[in-house]
């Protein structure tokens, strides 16, 4: 597998300024992060508020460039100004609040905005708009106004807008934080479909532990560093350590843990309800 994203000793410092705008100090948001994401992988990034997740995400499509160290996206160095547009085209980004990134007054125009800016010919734009809206299951809303949609629908339109630019990789920064349970399911199903059918590399940042159980790999961040790195099962079997990093485990895992503490013979790292049901039935 090809490398999609690679960071080497990545450091990012925000400048602290006084009221006149003079730099009075720096704050290190990312501290020596080296990681690798392969093409087609589903990566999840967990971490408390202020742990550096979003700052890291913004390096993947060159909204931010490293203070020290290097980030390569699809083999391109994000510091290379000549490659900026290629980097942004290969890595698309979806933010928490869909209202912040929907700009069109009609759904299909909004989705067409990205490819139009890339200079894609008109016929091709329409083709991409149609395909993208199909992929997120929003094609029947193509002539609707985005502000009449539900949160989950808006977020899917935002995702369509990103995939219309045909990125190889998509970074989702807490895409479900503002959504109701159904909206959350819609968005996750869409992301799942993109991975399976379009083979898009997915980097998902979230505070919902349940959303990452299918990830190929999970990174946990704290104080700008990657402090845990492993499969969901490896990560979620360390309940106490996750709690120290202000995180949590899926409710199934909490229940399994609680039952083990009360003396039932249950293995660590249970992630799915089917697993717990099976184990309990064997204890019958």
């Amino acid at each position, binding site marked *: 597998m090809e490398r999609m994203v690679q960071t080497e000793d990545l450091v990012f410092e925000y400048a602290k300024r006084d009221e006149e705008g003079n730099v009075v100090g720096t704050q290190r948001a990312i501290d020596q992060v080296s990681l690798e994401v392969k093409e087609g992988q589903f990566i999840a990034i967990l*971490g*408390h*508020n*202020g*742990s550096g997740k979003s700052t890291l995400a913004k390096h993947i499509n060159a909204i931010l460039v490293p203070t020290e160290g290097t980030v390569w996206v699809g083999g391109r160095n994000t510091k290379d100004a000549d490659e900026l547009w290629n980097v942004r085209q290969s890595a698309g980004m979806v933010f*928490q609040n869909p209202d912040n990134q929907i700009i069109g007054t009609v759904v299909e125009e909004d989705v067409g905005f990205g490819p139009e800016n890339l200079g894609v010919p008109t016929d091709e734009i329409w083709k991409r708009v149609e395909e993208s809206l199909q992929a997120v299951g929003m094609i029947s809303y193509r002539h609707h106004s985005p502000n009449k949609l*539900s*949160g*989950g629908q808006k977020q899917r339109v935002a995702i369509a807008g990103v995939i219309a630019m045909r990125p190889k990789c998509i970074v989702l920064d*807490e895409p479900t*934080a*503002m*959504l*109701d*349970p*159904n*909206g*959350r399911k819609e968005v996750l199903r869409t992301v799942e479909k993109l991975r399976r059918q379009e083979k898009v590399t997915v980097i998902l940042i979230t*505070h919902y*532990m*349940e959303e990452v159980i299918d990830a190929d790999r999970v990174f946990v961040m704290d104080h700008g560093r990657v402090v845990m790195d492993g499969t969901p099962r490896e990560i979620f079997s360390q309940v106490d350590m996750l*709690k120290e990093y*202000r*995180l*949590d485990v*899926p*409710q*199934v895992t*909490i*229940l399994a843990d*609680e*039952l083990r503490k*009360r*003396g*039932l013979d249950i293995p660590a790292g249970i992630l799915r*309800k*089917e697993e*717990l*049901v099976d184990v*309990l*039935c064997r*204890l*019958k």
Partner: protein
Amino acid sequence: MSIKIEHLNYIYSQGTAYEKQALKDICLEIPHGEFVGIIGHTGSGKSTLIQHLNGLIKATDGIICYNGENIYGERYNMKELRNQVGLVFQYPEHQLFEVDVLSDVCFGPKNQGFSREECEKRAKEALKLVGLKEKYHQSSPFELSGGQKRRAAIAGVLAMRPKVLILDEPTAGLDPKGRDEILEQIAYLHKETDITVILVSHSMEDIAKYADRIIVMNQGQVMYNSTPKEVFAHYKELEEVGLAAPQVTYIMHEIAKKGLAVDTGATTVKEAADSIMEVLGK
């Protein structure tokens, strides 16, 4: 303060092409001191409903009574109502504006006309209630972490000493620890004082853990109004309207299907664990 809502209707943009009935014939009673959860899909009318409760939106028709007094009555003191019914909006930290945390929290009582000493006293008390330590009082609100900002903003409402506290998704976007901290503080506040709490949330797990009673909104109407156990027993109907039951409830149903006589009405991890131990424990 007890709340009674009778046949409340609200129509947006009445008489225009965009006319939409957001609330339909809502009848509810919330006794003094209750902890009520409100759930519903996006656009179900939750936020419209809670904005009626402190008079930010005036009903198209129907009445709302606090302690038996109709707030739409001619002589009703709406300003006083807003002092007593504190509303914490979504992302309340966007409303922080002062130079330091303490001044920001003083803003509410200052507008209520209290002296500077009294404002500070109330602000400090509120900051203590939300668990923001004194070392942050002089910090700029913008230097705080996401969870701390959120707590400072909630303190701003508490400093007005409301008798009813309404929170619209107070944990959206917070990390799990921040989420638990805020909800624990609210539960503590509810236990220590006689405040009525109305919590709007998209997290079924949180609502199940903290609310005495759940109101389910769907298409502008009250669909269910009962205990967590009874409401989440309708998990299939809830799914049809874009909601769900807490994960543990699903697990209990699965286990029951396999022939173990566990309580399918469990809605929290503790209830589920108790029931499983009863069946399997020795």
